């Protein structure tokens, strides 16, 4: 994992994803504050709007990327045994990918 641009790319992903996550948090916060009555109906209605579907998908995508860079950093700092690190990173990728698929299925399930 020492490819050209790898360091700066991950660093950039972490920062950009952080910005998006922050903005999205404000956006969703606005929804909760500006909506008088929050129940399953209004929540379902908000999520089923196409624009929100896209923004939510993007949110989960960036969140997972952000998590990946962060967890990978922690593993690289503390886990020095290459075999263990490889297994750990593979497991984390698997877990994050599974989450991603699951989240896509959920969001797509909203009509």
């Amino acid at each position, binding site marked *: 994992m*020492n490819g050209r641009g790898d360091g*700066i790319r991950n660093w950039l992903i972490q920062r950009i994803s952080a910005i998006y996550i922050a903005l999205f948090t404000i956006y969703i916060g606005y929804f909760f504050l500006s909506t008088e009555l929050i129940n399953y109906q209004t929540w379902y209605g908000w999520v089923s709007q196409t624009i929100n579907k896209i923004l939510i998908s993007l949110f989960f995508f960036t969140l997972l990327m952000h998590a990946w860079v962060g967890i990978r950093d922690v593993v690289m700092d503390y886990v020095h045994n290459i075999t263990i690190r490889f297994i750990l990173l593979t497991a984390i990728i698997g877990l994050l990918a599974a989450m991603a698929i699951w989240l896509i299925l959920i969001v797509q399930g909203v009509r």
Partner: protein
Amino acid sequence: MRISVYRYNPETDAEPYMETFDIEVSSETMVRDALLEIKERDPTFTFRHSCGEGVCGSDAININGSNGLGCVTKIAELKEPVEIRPMPGMPIIRDLVVDMTQFFQQYRAVKPYIIRKDPVPEVELKQTPEERDKLDGLYECILCGCCSGSCPSYWWNPDKFRGPAALLQSWRFLADNRDQGTEERLDELDGPYKLFRCHTIMNCMDVCPKGLNPTKAIGHIKQLMLKNMV
């Protein structure tokens, strides 16, 4: 004043231990003076020191949990009992003396010298006072190791992460208008380890005895990398 110093001689001691001395101090006594007094009482006590005025960088040690130079740290201003240990994160040779081989290896690795592609003139290369000002806060580094020795990222990956001292020097040359090695310097620092192990913990700037700020220099390198990427 009560001073507790770290003792370890690999020839005689199975384990390191702390030894306590009571030293008379004045408001002017530096930690180095106290250590010299200890050495006079016990000549086997070992530490590095030379200039005694904070310019050679020999006597970086851990004083009450924080790295610093013994020769410019007034002992009366410290909390008693004063605890003196070798710098963390570096292998211990004896008492307060640590092995800095890795630290200097990282310094060498950043190519700490001007890279010129064009021929140089027969007189000086011009540099405006403003361009020269950019080197202030960078060239003063005395390579004492206080910063790298206080950096958790360097503790975990001393072989791969360049560390704050080396990266400060990397920026010292990137910031120099006479240097023409920007491309290769940035290429060399790429990858997840050499530069990007820095998690802006900022211990380095807290401990620097010369008041320099490696964290800021590292930030500048990242910005320049980004600028060169887009």
